[in-house]
Structure formats: C-alpha cells, structure tokens
C-alpha cells in the first residue's frame, strides 16, 4: 500500500488554478467578522451595564442559585385557560412557608411566574427554598391551581455557592483545554498556527456569547450550565475545523513550493471547501432535529451549538487561512 501518490504533472497545473480564491475577499471577511465581534462586545457591555443583569450574559438558575419549579396541572381545556400569572403571584403572596432550622423563610413576592401551554403548566422562579418549603409551596398553590401530577413535576434548587463553583470549574476546564490544544498544534504545526487557531476559537466563542447577550437583553434568555457545555463544544469544533484547513495548507506548501503563501492558502481552502461545507451541514442536521424536537432545556442548547458551529465553519474558511499570509510575512 503506497501512501501518498505524487500527482501527475498535467493534473497538478489544473489544480494550481483554484476555482475560488478566498484571499480576494479577505478584507470583506475580516470586516464582517470584526463587526460581528464588535456587536457581540456591545451586547455583553449592555448586559453588564443593565442593573437587572449586571453580568455579560443573563445568568440562569445554575449560576445565581434559587429554586425553579415546573408544575403540570391536571386540568383540561377551558379550566386551564382561566389561570393567569397575576392570580398565581397573588396567591404566592398569601402563602407562608415554614421556617427551616430557625432561619426565616424567604419572601415569595420576588417570584417570577410564567403560565405555559395555555394554562396547563406553570413555571416559577423562586429564591432558594428548602425541600420542605417547596412542598409547602405546592400545597399552598393547590386551592388555586387544582391537583398537581407528581410525575410531571420538576424542581431544581441550587444554592448560590454551587453556581459560583460551577462557573469556576467550567472556566478552569475550558482554559486548561485551550492551553493543551495550543501546545498540541504548536507541536504538530507551528506557533503561528496555534495562535491563529486560538484566535478563531475566541472569535467563535465571543460571537456565540454575543448572540446570547442580545437574546438575554431582548428576549430574556438565560444561560445555564448546558450553555457552558455548548461553548466548550463550539471551542472543540472550531479547533477541529481549523486544523483540517491547516493540514491542507501544510500539504499544499510541500506540493507547490514555487507558489506564494497566498496562493497556497487559496488552493488549500478551495480543496477543503466542499468538505467544510458538507461537514458543517451534516453536524448541523442532528442539531436542527434537536431544535425541532428537543424542546425545553435542550432548545437553547441546540441554538447555541447551531450558532457556534455556523460561525466556527466561517472562521476556519475566512479568518484563519486568510490571516496566515499576513502573520507569516513578519
């Protein structure tokens, strides 16, 4: 089994003229990416300056702590529709929770109530409740909302300390994996390549965060630990996609020594373009299915991945290869 087949001369000259030259539109590409990054930073800055968010992204329960309660009622049709969020809110104000371990029970006036599925289910966001207080709360709501099916109940309580710990451990594991990936790429390719891969990764992660900063501002979308998982995946995908293009550039540099770096890059991008598009397409297919069927907590996870993988494909075609000639010249 012979490994690499030297291409016949005739075919090589045909290959040396790419159908598509990425470096011709590199300025436009940089502009688009630059604007997207700027817009993302603006979104995060707006979130930060918003006193009700005070963080670059709207933090969800996992990071702030508190209790999230999802209740499904056993009502039907018109009975369900009669329930309003205001009525629930009022009822909550009347419920007094038992104190636990001598501590005063939290006030329920700050609760956020959402009525979902035409009144069939309720989602409550509450301060941090002890398990028995959660039960007391459900019992207290029963006169208003009717019987509750325990098989459809979902309760999440996160103490505030755990949220911070989760955030820290995610950030640390992310930074460590970046460092290791950079080391691997420097070892297999070159320092410049590692730098560019990390730049692309920052670009992809920033824009994904930016989209969610704007979603948080405009639609109240919160980020949870699944979002952290999504960011980590985007980072992994970004590097994976960039590495494939780098591998091809390295190969073209060996094969077409006589050409300039820009031409070699054009050839490499041209040769991998079909693969890049197909791959992002086949990766996006299950994600789109997840968007359609996933529902609930998986919906925004799928959105984050879809955005991140889309941006990641772009950066590995339009950013990493086109910046290479610029940086390698020095």
């Amino acid at each position: 089994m012979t490994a690499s087949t030297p291409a016949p001369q005739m075919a090589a000259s045909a290959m040396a003229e790419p159908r598509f030259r990425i470096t011709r539109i590199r300025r436009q590409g940089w502009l688009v990416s630059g604007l997207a990054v700027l817009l993302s930073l603006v979104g995060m800055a707006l979130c930060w300056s918003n006193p009700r968010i005070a963080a670059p992204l709207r933090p969800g329960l996992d990071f702030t702590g508190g209790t999230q309660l999802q209740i499904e009622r056993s009502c039907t049709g018109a009975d369900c529709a009669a329930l309003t969020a205001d009525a629930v809110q009022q009822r909550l104000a009347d419920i007094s929770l038992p104190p636990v371990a001598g501590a005063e029970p939290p006030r329920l006036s700050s609760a956020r109530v959402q009525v979902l599925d035409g009144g069939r289910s309720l989602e409550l966001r509450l301060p941090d409740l002890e398990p028995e207080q959660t039960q007391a709360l459900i019992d207290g709501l029963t006169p208003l909302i009717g019987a509750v099916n325990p098989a459809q109940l979902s309760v999440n309580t996160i103490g505030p300390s755990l949220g911070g710990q989760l955030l820290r451990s995610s950030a640390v594991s992310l930074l460590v994996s970046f460092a290791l990936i950079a080391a691997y790429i420097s070892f297999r390719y070159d320092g410049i390549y590692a730098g560019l891969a990390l730049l692309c990764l920052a670009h992809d992660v920033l824009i994904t965060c930016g989209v969610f900063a704007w979603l948080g501002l405009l639609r109240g979308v919160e980020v949870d630990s699944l979002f952290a998982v999504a960011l980590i995946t985007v980072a992994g995908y970004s590097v994976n996609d960039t590495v494939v293009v780098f591998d091809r550039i390295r190969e073209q540099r060996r094969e077409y020594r006589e050409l300039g770096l820009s031409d070699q890059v054009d050839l490499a991008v041209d040769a991998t373009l079909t693969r890049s598009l197909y791959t992002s397409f086949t990766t996006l297919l299950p994600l789109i299915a997840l968007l359609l069927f996933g529902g609930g907590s998986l919906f925004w996870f799928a959105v984050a991945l879809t955005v991140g993988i889309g941006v990641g494909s772009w950066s590995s075609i339009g950013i990493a290869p086109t910046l290479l000639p610029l940086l390698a010249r020095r």
Partner: protein
Amino acid sequence: MARQQGWFALILALAIAAGAVLASFPLQLGLDLRGGSQLTLQVLPAGAIKQVKGEQLEAVKDVLDRRINGLGVAESTLQSVGDDQLVLQLPGEQDPSRAAKVLGTTALLEFRAQKPGTEEEMTGLLKLKRQAVAVLNQSRAQQAAGDQQPEIKTEELAKALDQLGVKVPPGSSETDQLELLLAEVNQRIVALYEPPQLTGKDLTSAGRQQQQTGSGWDVTLAFTSEGGRKFAELTQGIAGTGRLLGIVLDGRSISEASVGPEFKPAGITGGAASITGNFSAEEARDLEVQLRGGSLPLPVKVIEQRTIGATLGAENVQRSLSAGLFGLALVAVFMVVMYRLPGFVAVVALALYALFNLALYALIPVTLTLPGIAGFILSIGIAVDANVLIFERVKEELRRGNSLIRSIDAGFSLAFSSILDGHVTGLISCAALFALGTGLVKGFALTLGIGLVLSLFTALSCTRTLLRLLMGYSGLRRPTFFLPAAQLPGSAS
C-alpha cells in the same frame, strides 16, 4: 483480500458482541431521563475542623450510607464529589424532602440532667411548650383536613412572645409565630440542663414502638454496658428530686422525663430506655434511622435539589431519541446522495459506530443524561466528518485520473493526518473537561470522548474494510459509483 476478510470477521464479531452486551446489560439512564431526585449535600466545617478533607468526608458518607439503608430507598446511590460534597440520587418517585430531612440533621443525641434550683422556671416553660404543641398539632390536623385555620388566641401568643423576648418578623402568620415561640422555649429548656453525661455514642441500637395509650410512637434505645452504667448513674442522681431528665437532639429538647423516687437506690438499670416524644409513625422511624446510623461528625447542608417527575423524564428520552434518529436519517440520506457507493458504506459504518457506542455505554457503564445524549449526537457529526474527509480525497484522486483502488487507498492515507489532528484536539478538550468539570459537563465529555475514540476506529477500519471488500466484486468497481461521470477526467475534457 485475506487481510480484509480478517478485519471483516473482527468487525462482525465486535458487532455481535456489542449486540449481546446491549441485550444483557441495560443502558443506565440518568435521573433527568427516568425521573427521580438528586440532592447535593455540602459538608460544613465545624469546631476544631476548619477545612473538610477526604477523611472527614468519608466518615460523613459512612453515616449517611447507613441512614439511607435504614430508610429503605431502592437503588439509591451516594457518591462523594470533590473534597466536601456528596451527591445522593434517588431514582423514581420518592420523597426528596423527607430524605433531605433525615440526611441533613446531625442526630447528636444527648441525655442531660436538669440543673438544681431551676424547677420553677422549668415548670413555666414546660407549660408553655405543652400549650404551643397542642395548638400546633390541632392546626396541622385541621389544615390536613382542609378546614380553616383554628382560632389561636392572639393576645396570649403576643404576650408569651413578648415575655420571652422573641422578635417576630413582620407579616408572619400565627402558625409561624407559634413555631418561633416553640423554638425559643426549647432553647431555654436546654439551657437549664447540666452538660451531657451520655450521648448517642453510647447506644447499640434503636427501635420504635407504638404507645400503649394514645396513638403516638416511642423510640426505644439500647445502651452499651458502659452506656447502661452511665444511664443508671444519671437517673439515680435525679430520682425523686423533681428534677427532669432531658433528651436533647441536635440542641433541641425533644423529651423531658421525670424519674420516680423508686429508682433512688440504683437508678434505671437494664441498659434500655425509651423516648416518649409523642412522635408520628414516620417521625419515629426517621429518628430511629438517624440514631442507628450514628451522629454526623460534621454538619451537612443541602445545597442542590433537582427533582424531575417520571413522565417528564420519559418525555425527555422520547424527544432526544426522535431528534437523534431523525438527524441520523437525514445524515444517511445526505451521504448516499452525495457520495453514492462509499456514502452507503459510510452509513453502514456509522450504524456500527452507533451500536458500538451504545454497547460501551452499557458496559462501562455510562449514565446517560441529556447533555450526554447531546455529546453522542455531536460525536456522530464528527464521525461523519472523518468519512467526508476521506471520500473528498478519493474524489480528488479520481478527478486527477488515478485508478479506483489507488484513489481509495490514497484517500484514506491522505485524510489520515487531519482526521488524527481533529480527533486528538477533541480528545484533549474532553480529557480536560472530564478531569476538571462537574456533573453535566463530565457526562458530556465522557460520551463525546468515547465517541471520538470509536469514530477513529470505525472511519479508519470499518469504512475501509467494507469498501475494500466490496471492491472485490468487479461489478462494483466502477468509478461512476463514486463520482458523477461528468467529473471524471476522461469525459470532462
């Protein structure tokens, strides 16, 4: 050819083995998929211990293990996380608040004698306590029956609270005020006792029995011989004096007993006692479980509770399953349309890939959670990418005018370095996430990591072997099965 057949036999054997594994070991579903509760307990430093370390965590875990077994909860698991946390999983529909209550209390039992000269104060406090308990019980019974709140004598309550100097938070209900009153009274009663002479450490076992009169339950205790001696001494000291024997649990006075003068000569001997706290059957059982398990060396606090109903869990499984299957079907159609014969081979290899993945999940075993399934779906994307990389190379070689077999071989070897780099970088981040991440992130990293390793195997061996094997049939050795005729060098020019 012989080599291909060897590989083929290996792949076939693996596929059968994977099928057998899946048939005999069930996949473990996480609580978000099957329903149930998860409690995270934080062990808090106390006393001389400033920071919780592995040893102390183990000691706490032992006690909690015994308590969980005592509760008789099926299939529960208790795992330590990091230096100072424990995660308890209760599958199915069980009552997490009861578990939290039983697990979270220290269960430090103390027997203490009343200080001399405090008889008058004690009498007043006990009277107040009896009244408060009676009203509270009545109120609870009526609430359970769905009746209106009972009449609580507001004036008397306010007077009693004022007398004890209890500050009442504004807006709290009368029941809350009563509970606050009761807590204060209990605290004051405890203050009237001597230091403990006998603790839960002197117990050999605990049980419960229904009271002969009334409907309540008592908790029975058996002491060690040393404990029995101490108990006799303690009761002898106060027998006939009118002073009380206090039973204090976690700093709360749960029972006050008088010791009659007939015990003056030798105290209560026999090494057994009972706590008559007028407990409900459930309270008595929980107390028994706590006392049997021993007291916690350090206090714990429930910092996280996640409960998901069984039906909701089943819905999650169904949704992610349909998403997975639908996504896979789309990818399969895409591959066959774009890559023809090799596309078909890739679909077979991907089906094997999915089978191997599930078998490994069952074997290791991996507990499948929602992020885990997401990791699996994503790893399929990466596995497909490896095939796309290879087939694009094969197509390129064919366009250059190479022979079919040569193109296939070249396709595999040329694509290898980028497949390897992509997988290694993916594995590096999985390793970092698994080592440093928590809960959700860990599950995701594990399934993605398994997927990456398997994808290396299936893309490089399964796809290749199947393709080479098919090339043994001359009818299939046609470049047009790989590339549209218009793109082949001969017809293109």
